[in-house]
């Protein structure tokens, strides 16, 4: 199989993507050299602290970044369509059908002055402007049913403020799915919800994604969310992907010290009576990013080279990569604090 054919098969193909924001304090490098891909029917979780560039990455894929952002990429293709040079008009024709997005806060991501049914109908009509009125209504009711909104005809005429947070996020999902997108990007879709509702929405997201055969990028700061829903997981830190692999590899065989820290700080790992583990220090500012490995100053296992030169992604297995000098053959062996016997 040639490289081109391989690439066309990928639902999402991002190569060396960087996003830089102009700010009064200087350029902020929010996303640095990120490469990832996604196969149809797959869920990729992107895990990281707030401010690590997860949202900027999502918006760069949707081309929804503000005008102050500069995007550079070697490859940026959705379902084989290179979207790098596309105009806003062309992007409008693709958004919704090729890719759509679910946002963090269902309280603010619906128009408060518009009835739920009308908002979903608007998304249905976005790519089929000539659709008949009753056909639109049927499609909206079908979508509402699909995302688990009970009694759709009664809910059709309600306003967002009449619904609970979970119901609103279901409505947002219905809007995102209205034009049958092939790629769904979910930016912290469960963060603003109650824990009990979080699980329901995650399961719903996975069921629908499997049912439609769509691919999904699930952005979260919650490792448990990634473990529950994702096939593969990428860990982001300071704008870079520091480790990427199948979810099993990330949770059972983590290789990057930052991933160790994240796993060690899970509440389920804390021994009774002991305080929760926290990674020391704070994420660095990205304007400009620190020299070498951005995680070095918080890293107990940092080597001298970490302060000088950023590590490349070392291959651990055909699906597993980690960016740490510890994987270099010359590095000293380090006893891993987590992993191996870990069951999350």
């Amino acid at each position: 199989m040639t490289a081109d054919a391989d690439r066309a098969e990928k639902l999402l193909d991002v190569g060396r993507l960087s996003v830089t924001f102009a700010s009064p304090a200087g350029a902020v490098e929010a996303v640095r050299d990120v490469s990832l891909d996604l196969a149809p029917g797959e869920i990729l979780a992107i895990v990281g602290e707030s401010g690590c560039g997860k949202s900027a990455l999502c918006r760069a894929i949707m081309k929804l970044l503000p005008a102050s952002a500069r995007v550079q990429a070697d490859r940026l293709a959705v379902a084989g369509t290179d979207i790098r040079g596309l105009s806003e008009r062309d992007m409008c024709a693709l958004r919704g059908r090729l890719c759509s997005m679910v946002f963090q806060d269902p309280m603010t991501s619906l128009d408060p002055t518009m009835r739920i049914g009308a908002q979903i109908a608007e998304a249905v009509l976005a790519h089929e402007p000539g659709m008949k009125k009753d056909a639109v209504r049927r499609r909206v009711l079908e979508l509402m049913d699909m995302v688990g909104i009970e009694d759709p005809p009664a809910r059709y005429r309600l306003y967002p403020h009449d619904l609970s947070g979970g119901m609103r996020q279901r409505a947002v999902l219905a809007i995102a799915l209205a034009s049958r997108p092939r790629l769904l990007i979910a930016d912290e879709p469960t963060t603003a919800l109650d824990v009990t509702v979080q699980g329901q929405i995650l399961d719903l997201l996975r069921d629908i994604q499997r049912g439609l055969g769509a691919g999904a990028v699930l952005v979260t700061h919650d490792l448990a969310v990634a473990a529950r829903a994702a096939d593969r997981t990428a860990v982001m830190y300071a704008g870079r992907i520091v480790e990427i692999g199948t979810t099993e590899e990330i949770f059972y065989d983590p290789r990057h010290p930052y991933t160790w820290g994240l796993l060690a700080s899970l509440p389920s790992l804390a021994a009774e009576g002991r305080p929760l583990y926290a990674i020391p220090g704070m994420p660095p500012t990205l304007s400009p990013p620190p020299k070498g490995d951005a995680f070095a100053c918080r890293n107990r296992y940092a080597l001298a080279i970490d302060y000088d030169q950023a590590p490349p992604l070392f291959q651990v297995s055909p699906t597993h990569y980690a960016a740490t000098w510890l994987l270099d053959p010359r590095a000293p062996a380090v006893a891993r604090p987590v992993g191996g016997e870990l069951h999350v």
Partner: protein
Amino acid sequence: MKLARRLCSLLLSLLVLSAAVFWIARLAPGDPLVSYYGQRAERMTPEQRAREEARLGLDAPIHVQYVRWLRNALHGDLGVSFKYKRDVVDVIRGRVSNTLLLGGVGFALIFSMALGLGLLCARFEGRPLDKILCKLGTLSSCIPEFWLSLLLILIFSVYLRVLPSSGAWSVDGGGAADRLRHLILPMTVVVTGHLWYYAYMIRNRLLEEVRADYVLLARSTGLGRRRVLLRHCLRNALPSYLSIMAISVPHIMGGTYVVETVFSYPGIGTLCYESARYQDYDLLMVLCLLSGAVVIVCNMLAQAINEHIDPRVRAAAAERAEADGHG
């Protein structure tokens, strides 16, 4: 029920306003007899003055005068203008249509043009068109109204001789076209004085909405920027714009007063100024109550429109009503 409650609060507000204006007008320095008798008042003997004051009912303590005025007003007698020696209602009736024409059409122009400009600027935020409009707008709102009026009179009436410099119609009368010609200059001043203030307000209000999350969701489904601006952002910004419109009615009315004076335009503005200046008490009372009623009714209107458009306000009102019903 709701209407009755609003009507009650309107009447109560007007009552308080009438008392306040009544007292302040009479405590302010000045001689109402000058307004009635002109120069003759200055040559009157103290006895004559006392007699005339008694005749006009100005000798009693203020609260007695107020009760007398209130009783007459409730019977439909709003008094006589000292200056014009005519029933105040007649005096105002002759002027009100002029002000309604200048202020009303000016108001409609200001807000429709401001909305258009605001949308245009918001749509092209940060681009050259927006920047140029913002600069021009700031400049236009800095020009004092009286100065612009005089400049326009100088250019169009004195040098070019194409437009009349004052009044509302020619002496010989010329129909609608004539009235329109008289309106152009004062209208230009009224509109330039206020336009940018409201255009900038709606621009910024729209840009606040453009940053909202629901815009990202709508755009991620494939809706274009212009469509989201018109269908979602405008809808969300409109309630506050309407309230601003309603609240600005007296502001724009006040602006027309200055313009009316400069252009000697026979409207309520010039009348209001005269009545306050010359202690024409009964006329002042009616004009103040009229302005007060306009302000209050406009605010109520804004509230009603708000409730109709913004379902959150409607829901809050319904909850309040329910709580009242249980309480």
